[in-house]
């Protein structure tokens, strides 16, 4: 670990100022499960850690039937998974909050941090995309909001500008006839980076799929919202044929690479498998049998 300073601002404004003044070497410390490793192994240049966990908007989890779910960007996974409203209305977030790392990682790691880390394989990101999550950003120019699917711009890169950081993630209110699910594939049972992951959100109109959002990860430089896969499902009752069409669209959208964690062929295939699995679980959660 290179020499770093540690700061714990007590307001969002103070945090913005610290980050802006600190420049590229200033990093937001939330759960630290990615950042501390990157800094220790000197894979990034960092000289100031701005700990945002004293800021209420970054740690609060709020639910309002009209506004939906607001998760502070630094709220750790275990608190997200334990929240009654998340358990009732957003089981898709439980899927990812309970499998990012092991229990000790979930004691610290946040979905906001997972998003900001912008790994193509980040296990929190496809669910946020599928749910239509808005990312609330604070910065020197005030607040702005970006759709989750627009947030990552490449491996380890995101839309945040100088002095900006993510305050909260806002998922829209649940729909009684909707369901969502996240799944990933890893070689071990736990403690692994996804070879491929996927999330699906389905909203039903009667017995037809009203609209569908399909996201896949680890198959491109950033997690993808696959509009063609959603379109393959929308407007018709769910069937093996539409599920296969959506899976095929996910495979087609995948532009994976070969690396030590998986091959192009494996990842493209898994994108289809996981999307199909997510569709079935999402439908079941919406109360619609496949």
């Amino acid at each position: 670990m290179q020499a770093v300073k540690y700061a714990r601002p007590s307001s969002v404004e103070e945090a913005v100022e610290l980050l802006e003044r600190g420049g590229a070497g200033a990093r937001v410390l939330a759960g630290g499960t990615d950042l501390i490793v990157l800094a220790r192994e000197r894979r990034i240049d960092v000289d100031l850690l701005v700990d945002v966990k004293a800021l209420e908007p970054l740690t609060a989890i709020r639910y309002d039937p009209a506004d939906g779910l607001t998760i502070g960007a630094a709220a750790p996974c275990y608190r997200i998974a334990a929240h009654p409203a998340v358990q009732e209305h957003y089981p898709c977030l439980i899927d990812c909050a309970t499998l990012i790392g092991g229990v000790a990682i979930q004691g610290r790691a946040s979905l906001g941090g997972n998003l900001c880390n912008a790994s193509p394989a980040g296990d929190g990101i496809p669910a946020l995309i599928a749910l239509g999550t808005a990312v609330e950003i604070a910065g020197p120019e005030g607040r702005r909001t970006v759709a989750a699917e627009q947030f990552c711009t490449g491996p380890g890169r995101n839309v945040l500008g100088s002095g900006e950081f993510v305050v909260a993630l806002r998922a829209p209110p649940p729909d009684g006839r909707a369901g969502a699910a996240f799944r990933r594939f890893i070689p071990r049972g736990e403690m692994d980076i996804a070879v491929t992951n996927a999330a699906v959100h389905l909203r039903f109109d009667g017995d037809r799929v009203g609209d569908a959002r399909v996201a896949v990860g680890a198959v491109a430089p950033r997690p993808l919202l696959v509009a063609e896969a959603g379109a393959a499902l929308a407007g018709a009752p769910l069937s093996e044929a539409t599920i296969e069409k959506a899976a095929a669209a996910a495979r087609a959208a995948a532009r994976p690479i070969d690396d030590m964690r998986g091959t192009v062929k494996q990842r493209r295939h898994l994108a289809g498998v996981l999307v199909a699995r997510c569709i079935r679980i999402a439908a079941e959660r919406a109360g619609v049998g496949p």
Partner: protein
Amino acid sequence: MVTTEKPYKVVGTRPIRPDGTDKVTGRANYGADIRLPGMLYGRVKRSPIAHGTIKRIDASKALALAGVRAVMTAEDLPRKGRREFAPLGSVKISLATLSGNVMARDKVRYEGHAVAAVCATDPHIAEDALELIEVEYEELPPVLHADEAMLASAPLIDEALHTREMATGESAEEPSNVAMHFVAEMGDVEAGFAEADVVLERTFKTQMVHQGYIEPHNATAFWRQDGGLEIWCSTQATFVMRDHLAGLLEHPVSQIRVTPQEIGGGFGGKISVYLEPLAAVLSRKTGKPVKMTLTRDEVFRATGPTSGTAIRVKLGAKRDGTLVAAAGELVYEAGAFPGSPVAAGVRCIFTAHAIPNQRIDGYDVLVNKPKVQPYRAPGAPAACFATDSVMDELAERLDLDPIALRLKNAAVEGTRSADGAAFGVIGSRDCLEAIRNSPHYRSELQGPNRGRGVAHGYWYNAGLESSAYASVNSDGTVALVLGSPDIGGTRASIAMQLAETLGIAAERVIPQVVDTDSVGFTSVTGGSRTAFAGGWAAHEAGLDLRQQLAARAAKIWGVEAEQVRYRDDAVIVGPAGEDGGERSITFTELAAKLASTGGMIVGRADSNHASAAPTFATHLVDVEVDPETGKVEVLRYTAAQDVGTAIHPSYVEGQIQGGVSQGVGWALNEEYRFDEKGRMENASFLDYRMPTALDLPMIETVLVEVPNPGHPYGVRGVGEVPIVPPLAAVANAVHAATGHRFTELPISPGAVLEKLLPGED
């Protein structure tokens, strides 16, 4: 489950280990836990390239950093000649190899090869200093695969290396990356194959895998002003460490004391020196104690995994399954210096089976990867993977039950192996029968995508030297002093053997592992020898005590020593006394009288026995393969093993379960992955993927007790053979589940999918 009853009081029971409380409360002192006044912290500068010449090392900027105290390079170590050797168990190891691996001189041979070391007042400063040490390299093309390395056109890793023919002792004229060629031959292999009705020939490949102990290597050294060198470290072999340091540093053995700290796993990987000579030199330069610990990344890149292998196996059998001939060619990666376990691979590859005609060739081949080190039954698992995969295919081809085929060909007492030795009393058939009779084998495996596999493995075990001192305390306990670092419960199993000899409760023997000045020479904790040889030494120390105690009782009673004997129930009995009754005194009563009847007594033993007996293991596994993802799940696992006498059955079971776990990891996910320049890609626990608790079921063990007639308590080593069969057992089960033979490890989800989805692009 234990299959036989024994006539013992202590042996075969399950007392709580003597070092247990310290280990469950965090009080036990492991190597990295040491802290000495004025201690400095050292780190190692490592090569970022796999092969190259060192043009220049400039440490001036590092030395200028506040807090940095010293920097060392290979120039600070004596230059060792190729023909200078140090002892290692029953073999010798070249000091030039040891020294060259500890710190690169002139040339780096693998990514992570040490080029310099630095020490500072704080660990963070030592780390900062690494970036300030400037090293200039001239890159050379790396040789990364054994098959390329064997080509005459391959770049040479060591220009002075010539292939040594182990059969003749002659060396080839031209230099080569092939360090050694071993041959073992028996019968007439050509005639044997000519007799066969079925001949199968297959080639198998495995990658380097790491022992994966959880505690990284560490060493603390203090070079006193009077020349005495103190070393505290995690090692499997304190005396080997001392002797190797003496050779590497050209410092008298009598001036070096190695004090073993608790050791957080080794499996063979903590025998070699790494940090100790560096910490010693840095301490000599600074006059301060220097502590060094490796990071996990360094453990992967710069300590020894076991070899990647390419093995060709050819088996010939009669129609009824009788094996008539076997040929094998084993190519093992040594890493950057000679010394792969290919000789052991040659020794083990066909030895579980009785085959009259054999020819085996083994090659020890240099590649630009870390120098391999022993790993649990070194050389045998990959060999068993090859042979027992072919055995499985043979059973299928001949429509025979896989256990029936192995029983038909099982080695028995008197069977000769290719190295010429004939087996004594062994439990090979017993293990096969134990599996055949197990509830697991008798159960039917139901459900789609599931398969069952079996494999049968062999390991020879080691004996070697051990010492023990046992002093009787006045309260009727015995302090037992040992030289074997306790890596997994050997304090308990050795103490129990002394307790059995003396006829006292296990808890009344208090074992301690001590430094090299405080006990007689004791060889490595390895080769499954510690419970065997350490226990034997403790037993002999116990016999010495029995004799001395009897003599003392005779003295007290005023009778001849020959009239007194020590009974197995810890009562010393003598001739009838004045009252007409037999004289007797218990061990405890006599212990209390020792001080006033001539003084306390110490039993001692320095023993060296070659009668370590081989062990066999038969493993049975059920798997389920997800046809959509290629993931293999282990559903059920049963391991039967000839354990000789199980001294402490819980720790015997634990050895088996641990070996199975490592073997399953090797079979399914573990491997060293290198990029095209020889840089390791997965040097972390995250990407190396050892099994977690979620990846394994409970592992059923069947302890088959066929006592070793060459040991007072029938002990056979138990630690190594359990890693031998899992690779083949899992591969055979995956074949049964999918219809595909996997001849390369790991059988990762990607590899399985590759076979399941042939048409898809």
